[in-house]
């Protein structure tokens, strides 16, 4: 397991970032996706980003990944500005996006090949396949895999680069409820094991409470961070404990989804 603790996790800083896109209906107008976002994530922290769809969660993740550039503001990884994609910021999407023409093993190796370090690090591939429980599937093609297995390959593919930050864009959103709960434990195990900084975008409040140290709630477009909730529940967390359920109802109330009349009135 020596190889697995190679890179120090890093902090993430987003400072007054705005981002707009051309409006789909009017080429001259621009639609504001993110309006003035600031946040900081400590090294090794697991933070969830929760909010309704279209509030710019994924855009924020793409900015941190370096796939998009902000209109204004600054993004830092540690003290380094982010200006292009890099292997130190891994990204896992809801769709595993495995390369269908590569076997499981070659998919996991992709990052090593891209960085031209496959020769030195070939022995790590087996280690990562074992880490995500896919030893027997090395030569299978992605179309053979179930959704949960494919997502584990995607996680291993991102982790083999020892990213300082792992960005997760609803990675478990397409899985059925049971697979999803199992995968949540899996991701937590990887995180506890490696202490990579993780930013998890999700629309599942239970998932956010179960997994993260802090929960950031984003609001409707243009996206803003409305509230940050520190989740002090002891790990491993019990989804049916009264504290868990209390936190859940607090968050639902913040999002105006609580079942009682007082929340409905505004």
């Amino acid at each position, binding site marked *: 397991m020596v190889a697995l603790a190679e890179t120090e996790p890093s902090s993430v800083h987003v400072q007054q970032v705005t981002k707009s896109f051309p409006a789909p209906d009017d080429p001259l107008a621009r639609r504001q996706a993110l309006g003035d976002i600031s946040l900081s994530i400590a090294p090794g922290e697991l933070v969830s980003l929760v909010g309704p769809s279209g509030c710019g969660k994924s855009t924020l993740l793409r900015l941190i990944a*370096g796939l998009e550039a902000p209109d204004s503001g600054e993004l830092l990884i540690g003290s380094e500005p982010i200006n292009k994609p890099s292997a130190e910021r891994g990204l896992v999407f809801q769709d595993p996006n495995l390369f269908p023409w590569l076997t499981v093993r070659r998919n996991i190796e992709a990052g090593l090949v*891209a960085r031209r370090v496959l020769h030195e690090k070939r022995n790590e591939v087996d280690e990562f396949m074992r880490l995500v429980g896919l030893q027997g599937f090395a030569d299978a093609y992605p179309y053979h895999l179930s959704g949960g297995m494919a997502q584990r390959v995607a996680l291993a593919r991102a982790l083999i680069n020892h990213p300082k930050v792992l960005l997760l864009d609803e990675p478990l959103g397409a899985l059925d409820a049971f697979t999803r709960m199992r995968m949540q434990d899996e991701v937590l195990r990887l995180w506890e094991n490696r202490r990579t900084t993780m930013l998890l975008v999700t629309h599942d409040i239970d998932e956010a409470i179960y997994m993260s140290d802090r929960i950031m709630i984003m609001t409707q477009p243009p996206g803003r961070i409305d509230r940050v909730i520190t989740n002090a529940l002891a790990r491993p967390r019990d989804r049916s404990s009264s504290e868990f359920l209390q936190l859940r109802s607090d968050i639902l109330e913040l999002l105006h989804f609580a079942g009682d009349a007082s929340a409905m009135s505004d």
Partner: protein
Amino acid sequence: MQLAVPLASLLTFGTHWLFSKSAPPLETHSYTLLFWEILGVSIILAIAQRFWPALREWMRHMSPIFTAAILLVGVWDMITSGFRLLPLPYFPGPASVLRSLIIDRGLLADSTWHSLALLLSGYTLGVIVGLISGVCIGWSSSVRYWGMPLLKVVGPIPATAWIPLAMVVSPSAIVSSAGLVALAVWFPVTMLTASGISNTRASYLDVARTLGAGRAYLIFRVAIPAAIPNIFIGLFMGLGASFLTLVVAESVGIKSGLGWYVSWAQGWAEYGKVFAALIIMAGFFSTLMTLLFKVRDRVLVWQKGIIKW
């Protein structure tokens, strides 16, 4: 069921025997021999399949089509040398085609060899150039800006329409014919490669970038593999176009190959030889198509696969 093939060959040969009493025995000798062989082999197979399950499976699958093919030859025989419904010498019977095939086998083999060499050199050249231009047009928007209009205007011209020009420009007829075949292949390969490359799923490229990929990786390890299914469509279309261009180029330009053989035999009104060459062409072209299908199935295992779990 297992006896359908021998029965069909008996039937076909029986009609032939009835009709060909007047014909010179030399004409029909090899045809007779062929049918004895088919009859013998099919009876041996019908016996062997009783003890060999794999063979039985294969025969159950193949015997209807073989039976139909043999009966079709019988019908052909009846229409031509039997009732003489079609004008001679344009429509010879199967026996005289077979005779031409045997008599002229040396020249036919030589022509096939020349066609193969010309086809493969032209096809390879066209594919290589087509892949390069297709990848450039598909990947780079500035190459697309200048290249796409050229491709759209020049590409659809049938390669055979360039023959007069090619004759003048090129140093030798062989080179110009290979060039025409290459041109015919180049257009569909370029078009399909370019569209495959430019339609690469953006998320594959995004993932690759966050894995640390540079431009070479994005082109050669993401965009090109993603475009392979499209590229194969281009390769198939190009192969079809190359057959057409080859035959036309051979019959008007150079003095070798199956295309030349057909027009040469026609010039001497030896239609038995024309049909013989057509049979060779059918075998030759369909073999190449089958080979390309096999290559595709090998390369695209990741699309279908055999094992499921």
